[in-house]
């Protein structure tokens, strides 16, 4: 048996893979949070619930209508994103001028309501979501076995993250977004409909969470509390990366997933807390986060 630092290589790579998978979800979710925070000035505590809604939507699409994984990957984010747009128009738009705290409280309340409804209708036991046939099986890489679905999740997440980064940092629409994040009044006075941009940004951020939820459905069970378990870690990731930085959110998400995976190999006792320990250190040394702009 091949070993690295006294650890069997299969175990090492296995945990590295799990770390990358978790990192994929951290990155997708913290990216959505960063995009929403940048434009709306709101810390979207409902993000975990919206992620869960994505998974539930995929589950229900399959149960009720037989719509499978691939269409669900598009339909669920659209439906949940539209729900996000309704929330923004009816509730969030009144809070932008107030302290962050109000947005946080409102979205926290929303998360509790959505999860409560989920428990009421779905029960709290996890519901299994069957893997699409096209992504069953895996590859034997020699040093480890790589399930196809997990490879797909990592690649898809990396592509979506990069695409979002590109759209924001390198396109004209992205320039509008960045400018409106800095000075919405002036951007609007140039003739750009900033309120519509804000609404669509929230819809997009929510759709990203739902997309992550659909991808998570075949890996984790679909359950009402799947979002709240994950979102605590994601908020720690956001604090470490620094609010408002797109690239920071992506890199920190993947990086911390990997660190968490490696901790499971080398010091399993700390694997559940390592991210929070890093968060505490970062808060002490660089309160704005590793990639944060504001000092």
């Amino acid at each position, binding site marked *: 048996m091949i070993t690295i630092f006294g650890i069997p290589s299969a175990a090492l790579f296995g945990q590295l893979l799990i770390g990358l998978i978790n990192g994929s979800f951290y990155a997708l979710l913290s990216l959505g949070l960063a995009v929403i925070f940048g434009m709306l000035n709101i810390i979207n505590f409902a993000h975990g619930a919206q992620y869960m809604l994505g998974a539930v939507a995929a589950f229900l699409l399959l149960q009720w209508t037989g719509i499978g994984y691939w269409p669900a990957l598009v339909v669920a984010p659209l439906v949940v994103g539209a729900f996000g747009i309704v929330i923004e128009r009816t509730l969030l738009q009144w809070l932008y001028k107030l302290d962050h705290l109000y947005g946080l409280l409102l979205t926290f309340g929303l998360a509790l309501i959505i999860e409560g409804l989920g428990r009421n209708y779905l029960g709290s036991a996890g519901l299994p979501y069957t893997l699409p046939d096209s992504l069953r099986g895996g590859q034997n890489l020699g040093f480890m076995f790589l399930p196809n679905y997990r490879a797909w999740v990592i690649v898809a997440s990396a592509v979506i993250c990069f695409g979002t980064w590109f759209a924001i940092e390198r396109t004209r629409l992205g320039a509008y977004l960045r400018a409106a994040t800095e000075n919405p*009044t002036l951007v609007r006075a140039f003739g750009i*409909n900033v309120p519509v941009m804000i609404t669509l940004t929230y819809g997009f951020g929510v759709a990203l969470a739902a997309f992550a939820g659909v991808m998570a459905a075949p890996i984790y069970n679909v359950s009402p509390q799947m979002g709240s378990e994950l979102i605590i870690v994601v908020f720690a990731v956001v604090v470490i990366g620094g609010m408002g930085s797109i690239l920071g959110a992506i890199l920190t998400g993947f990086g911390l997933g990997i660190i968490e995976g490696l901790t499971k190999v080398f010091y399993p006792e700390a694997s559940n807390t390592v991210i929070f320990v890093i968060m505490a250190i970062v808060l002490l040394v660089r309160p704005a986060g590793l990639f944060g702009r504001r000092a």
Partner: protein
Amino acid sequence: MLDRTGPLLAVKDLQAWYGESHILHGVSFDVREGEVVTLLGRNGAGKTTTMKSIMGIVGQRAGSVRFEGQELIGKQSNQIARAGIALCPEERGIFASLSVEENLTLPPVVRPGGLTIDQIFELFPNLKERLGSSQGTKLSGGEQQMLAIGRILRTGARLLLLDEPTEGLAPVIIQQIGKTIRALKQQGFTILLVEQNFRFASTVADRYYVMEHGRVIDQFANAELDANIDKLHEYLGV
């Protein structure tokens, strides 16, 4: 209805508030097509607030702002921009997260007939050299001011609101901005200028309005400047 006989911009009894504080108490003035009109007044007289009220970016406003005969008082700022008015704000408003090029091309074209990028570089050759700069705010104050003026020339807006474009700049740059304003006037732009420095204003302006405590208290043409100089010193407290 487009009213071609009246002034391009007609401001009547304009009132504005920031929250509870009532800042403009009935400002009235006109700007005719092709004119450069300057608002003078002490610090806090309400010049910037007048510009912002025309643009629709104060908390609350009342009265009448007619542009090309069209009433704008009930419109949102994005609609006002689309009507053909562009603002160069006092604080310049260059975006740190945008490159120089992105800053320059940010304001969308609202009408045909704006300057091309090359024509803008003819007015501001320095900008061309700094185009590759990754951050708009890394430019010098003068370059940022040129960028702030340059970017609104692309949009096709015919009325430019320039709020203290010479504030805090070196004399050579002030001269360049004066030259630019005269060139823009030649090209048919209509300009509403805010200035503290009436020596500078006298090199570009056709007419002046003097503001105090949120009201227009006097007006005169550039030819009458010398005759009014003592009064003006008093108004401006210089």
